[in-house]
């Protein structure tokens, strides 16, 4: 009954919608939330949305994991391996950035007691 969901177009549409929704949630958080950690999380959510979109759109239903095993004869019916590799790399990078960001935020909080992005007012036009 839900087999129409297996159609690549429908499925990709859902992926697009879902990840875009996620992206906009992230964007909303980024623009509307004041807390530094929330902002960093929003950034992470946006990144995730992009990853999901990538993976989702690069894979069609029925494709197998692109793993070379003993019995495999040819690269048939496999998902494209590149997006997955790239996404893995991107996740690592994103994690690094997030980690750096959080550590900076924590240090900033320790130093000044502030965690509000609007409170970053040390540097400004005079």
């Amino acid at each position, binding site marked *: 009954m839900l087999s129409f969901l297996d159609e690549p177009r429908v499925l990709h549409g859902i992926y697009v919608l879902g990840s875009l929704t996620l992206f906009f949630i992230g*964007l909303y958080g*980024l*623009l509307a939330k004041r807390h530094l950690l929330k*902002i960093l999380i929003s950034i992470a959510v946006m990144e995730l949305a992009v990853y999901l979109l990538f993976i989702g759109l690069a894979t069609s239903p029925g494709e197998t994991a692109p793993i070379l095993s003993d019995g495999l004869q040819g690269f048939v019916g496999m998902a494209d391996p590149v997006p997955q590799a790239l996404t893995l790399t991107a996740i690592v990078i994103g994690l690094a950035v997030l980690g750096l960001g959080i550590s900076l935020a924590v240090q900033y909080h320790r130093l000044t007691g502030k965690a509000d*992005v*609007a409170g*970053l*007012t040390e*540097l*400004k*036009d005079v």
Partner: protein
Amino acid sequence: MSLILKLFFFAVSLSPTALLMGWDGHLTWTLLDGVGLSLTLTPLAAFFLLLLALAAPLVALPMLRRPADWPSLALYAALLAGMQLLLLAGDFVSFFIGWEIMTWSSYLLLLRSPRTEMATSQSYILFNLASAFLLLAGIMVFYGLTGSFDIRPLVGPTQPQQLALALLFGLAFLIKVGTLPLHIWVPRSYDEAPDIFSAFLSAAISKMGVYGMILLLTLFPEALTGLYGRLLNGPAAGYLLAWVGVITAIVATYKAISQEDMKRLLAYSSIAQVGYITTAVGVGSSLALGGALYLALVHTLVKLLLFISVAGIVLQTGQRRFNDLGRLIERMPISFFGVLIGIIGLAGMPPLPGFAAKYLVFVSLVDARWLLLLAAMILSSTAAFIYCYKLIYAPFLGHANSAGAREAKEAPWPYLVPQVILMALLFGLGVFPGFAIEVLIDPVLTALRMAPLGGSSWAVLTTAYGGYDGVVLMSVFVTAFVLVTGLFLLLRGRMRRAGSPYDLSYAGEVPTEETPLHYGAGMGRELRRIPLVGWILRHSSQGFYLGLTRQMRAAAGLLGGFYAGNPQTWILLAVVVFAVVLGLQAVTGGI
């Protein structure tokens, strides 16, 4: 060590002289991608190089006095190098490079003075850079037209092209010479610059604008007449320029009269003098250009003399306001003669060469049938007598008004030597008015393909309208003077020196030390009651520029609001731009 360095700097200051004597040939230097500098000495440039060669060592001499300010000397060397490059330029790139080096090095020299204010230095550099950038824009237009940076006449330009070039270059050079209403940087900077350097600013640097204006004329096939035809007997486009020059001269003269500071007075007088030159360039005939060059020569000599003398006074008394000086004639007699000869030259009195120069310009105006301009020019040059008189009366005559003025000694020799040299030069040129014409000016006119003005001998100045003989004039005057003085002294009777400076005929009262007897700053105050003069003195273009500055700062504040530091705003703006552009594309049918 320091002596060797000083000798070196003096040698550098002689470099324009060396260049003038020794240059023959052509030098090229590649810059980049088909742009090269080519250096060559045209007769026109040689004339202005001569002015530089006169000014450079005479200004260097007092600058070398102990304690020497080494950065000033280094900058002065850079300035001289830049100006020589500018004069040697055979193409616009080297012209511009020289122009800019001149601009920034003179600016930095200006900063060496402790009196320079922010407003002064900013107006100096901004006006001069505006001039430079207009020049560069003009050069680019020129390059776009001809495909080459070489300075040579345009071939078959259209009217709009000529107009664009004339406007861009013309404005650039008018800023440099400081005509109204682009002059407000001049008085402040001449006033507040280091005292000696003011001499150079007024004598040499302002002449580069004159050089530029004359150079501009050579770019067009028919000079100014090609632009809008003729008016009466002169070029129509030049009529406007001539009026700009004359109005500048009139306004600057009245402003000069109302000044209470020696250097500022001289600054305004410089503006006025260069205004005459502008007028002469506007007339554009051979007579007028000869007059313009002559005026430039005389103005260089006179302003060097006056500024150096005044620098000596400031150095010895520590005072620069007319109210605080007085009676220096007995303490600084050589400086007195310096200023005296200077103002005679400045006022254009015969027998000094200032008259010869003005004579040429007057005659050229009559020749062009531009009589209203002649009257206006007479107005300013007669009014100039008042400030000339103020300039000699207030410091040297009357009563000493400050301790500094009462105890001053004659200026040190590095100040006096240039003064004596300049006095001799002025005197010599006055006796032989034809010398400058024949030796200095005629080669330029010939090179510009104009009729030379030379007369039968160096003693005479001849024009188609008549001329005069400097030797006869001078000998008649000197003979008369000797005769009169001799006869007077032969008469019976005793001369008695007044017992005290207060031994005066003072409306029946006996003045004392407390009586305000010095009329220094008050001179010319009543001129305000003349409606025209009052109107001129009440108005200033400064408000306009201040308003412009305010507007700029307000704009900066407004735009600076974008840069208020909230990351969310930044991102929001980026996203909004993204969305708007996308939306626009969608609406216009892109998507």
